[in-house]
């Protein structure tokens, strides 16, 4: 029986060598093995030799172990970490341009304020706002903006780091290790 999409979604962060074509290698692997991606974010790390990819993987047709083990075969992939959304600090950025003329501009700004979003650009009859938050906060915000008329919307896909271990907290999901 098919699982709901939220259960199929797993975050994998992949540390890769900063070499030409490395994104194509990862993307090509997902494509040729028939693995599905919900979102992908990539940027250099603090060490210029490496970049980190954060991929939200759809596990509808394949196990997480298989995805990780296939990724590990790529020579430019240095480390792979599985992040259980429950044990990760996960954030995503949303930019949205929304219709907002004099009649409803106040409502839009108020909504943005409720989510602690920011107005980053203002036009005569539209606004561009920014919100950083968890993917589900962004989902909510997007749904509430929709009635005003979304002109353009862009989300970054989530990035994530493992939640820190504290003595009083439960230990986070262990690193995905290869057998």
């Amino acid at each position, binding site marked *: 029986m098919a699982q709901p999409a939220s259960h199929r979604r797993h975050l994998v962060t992949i540390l890769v*060598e900063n070499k030409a*074509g490395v994104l194509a290698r990862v993307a090509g692997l997902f494509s040729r093995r028939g693995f599905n991606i919900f979102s992908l974010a990539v940027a250099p790390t603090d060490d210029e030799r490496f970049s980190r990819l954060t991929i939200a993987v759809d596990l509808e047709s394949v196990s997480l172990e298989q995805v990780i*083990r296939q990724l590990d075969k790529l020579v430019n992939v240095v480390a792979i970490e599985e992040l259980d959304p429950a044990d990760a600090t996960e954030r995503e950025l949303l930019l949205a341009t929304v219709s907002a003329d004099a009649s409803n501009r106040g409502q839009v700004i108020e909504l943005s304020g409720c989510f602690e979003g920011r107005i980053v650009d203002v036009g005569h009859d539209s606004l561009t706002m920014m919100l950083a938050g968890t993917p589900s906060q962004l989902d909510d915000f997007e749904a509430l903006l929709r009635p005003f008329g979304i002109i353009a919307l862009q989300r970054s896909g989530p990035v994530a780091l493992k939640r820190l271990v504290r003595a009083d907290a439960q230990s986070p999901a262990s690193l995905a290790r*290869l*057998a």
Partner: protein
Amino acid sequence: MQLTGAQALVKSLEAQGVEVIFGLPGGAILPVYDPMIDSPIRHILVRHEQGAGHMAEGYAQVTGRPGVAMVTSGPGATNIVTPLANAAMDSTPLVVIAGQVARASIGTDAFQECDTTGITMGVTKHNWLVTDAQDLPAVIAEAFYVATTGRPGPVLVDVPKDVSNATMDWYEPGVVDLAGYHPREVGDKDLVRQAAHLIQRSERPVIYAGGGILKSRASKALLAFAELTGIPVVTTLMARGAFPDSHALCLGMPGMHGNYTAVTAMQRSDCLIALGSRFDDRVTGKLSEFAKDAKVIHVDIDPAEIGKVRMPDVGIAGDCRLVIEALDDSVRALVSSGEAQADRSPWLATIRSWQEEHPLHYDRETSEGVLKPQFVVESLRDATPDDTIVVAGVGQHQMWASQYWRFEHPYTWVNSGGLGTMGFAVPAAIGAKVGMPDRLVWAIDGDGCFQMTAQELVTASAERIPVKVAILNNAYLGMVRQWQEMFYEERYSEVYLSPDLPDYVLWAEAMGCVGIRVEHPEEVLPAIEKANDVDDRPVVIDFRTDAMEKVYPMVPAGASNDDIVVDPRFGQGGR
């Protein structure tokens, strides 16, 4: 010491111990061919780049050393994509050096430009585009390291023409250290112990030996382990020769055209010990029906194979030879600690009864002098030494060769397994003969396959590489014809090739080979003996075989292995 990039590249190949390169020059690789004149490396000039790739594969499969091919940019590189894909599927160590247009021209659709690293990304273990001549010694060392370690496979190094022409300061590359590549060879000890317990308790165990046995040079370890435990062994298409066919524990080939006993023993097993095999669909048949009662122990150097198709009860990532030796120790320890082995005599007796009831069959009573392809394979087998290297293409002839040859030694069988590349046999046989010049090398080929790469016999004649080719000429794309007969109501669509267009004897002679035609059974042995005596040029024998003959047994595609079909002329198939 200042060298050009081209000189550094050739010197790096020499440093890797390369003794032969199969290749064909062209514009972008021209600078590299200049220092080849002064190199001790033998270069074999092929007639098509696909030939270079398959020759390098044949060389690698019989020697265990990486095969090396060199091609130019654009069409040179695209022509070798098939061998790269073939080597990736069959885990063959292959290093391809490709020329590329100058760096400034990359991305401009320059003459003979293509995105070689992009095109080959999915069919190589890794590839490199060299952008600085100074990197060449390190990149070549990395390429050979990646190709030959862990699960072996093909790699490609793309070298722009201006990089070859640039100067660099020569250096010896250090020990290869790649941040993201650390193949794990030793199996987990606890898992090995668990596997040993499972094995000792099993009443109907089968060893499912795959090509990884040959890659890890584990044939001796496998023999010792099978004899220690008394467990019968099936050898997959990629593992023929890894365990001697004459051994009492050898059940032969499983799978779609495997023999009844090998297929059925796996189906009825309670413990499948998969060693360097990957549960290929041609072995498992319908997966949900495959070996349903078996606990599975899966040993593979590639962790991604474990659980990819069938979830094992014990999965051990590691080198086959090392893990088999560890299993051997573990079983011995269990025995000496008093853990009894389950009684397997009923199982072995059942297997014996299957072997007696369902041997491989073909109709030996040839009416009107019809030549049976199986008879040709048996005659070749009987008229050649048992260390003869047999090379096959893909199709009916390949299956008959695998079924009717008797493999006694590892590395005597070369074929295209995973990719199923028609046209593999002729160039692969040439490469095998280059690697093992003192051994008799026979290609058993089909007429359809032969027409795909036959021009490499010109290479073989020019280079004095005396391979033998037996064409089982049934005038059809025989395996396709068989499927159309069995599953498409004898509607034969585009499978007829003609027995005498081309005239294979004239064609062979035009390519500098000896050409022989055989139409009747009594001519078979004299022709083979004549061919075996020719040592200065290739020989091609055009065996005119029975076009109606089919490969049996057969598990139809997608069917359960329980529904194995034996030749209807020889009784009922199935359970």
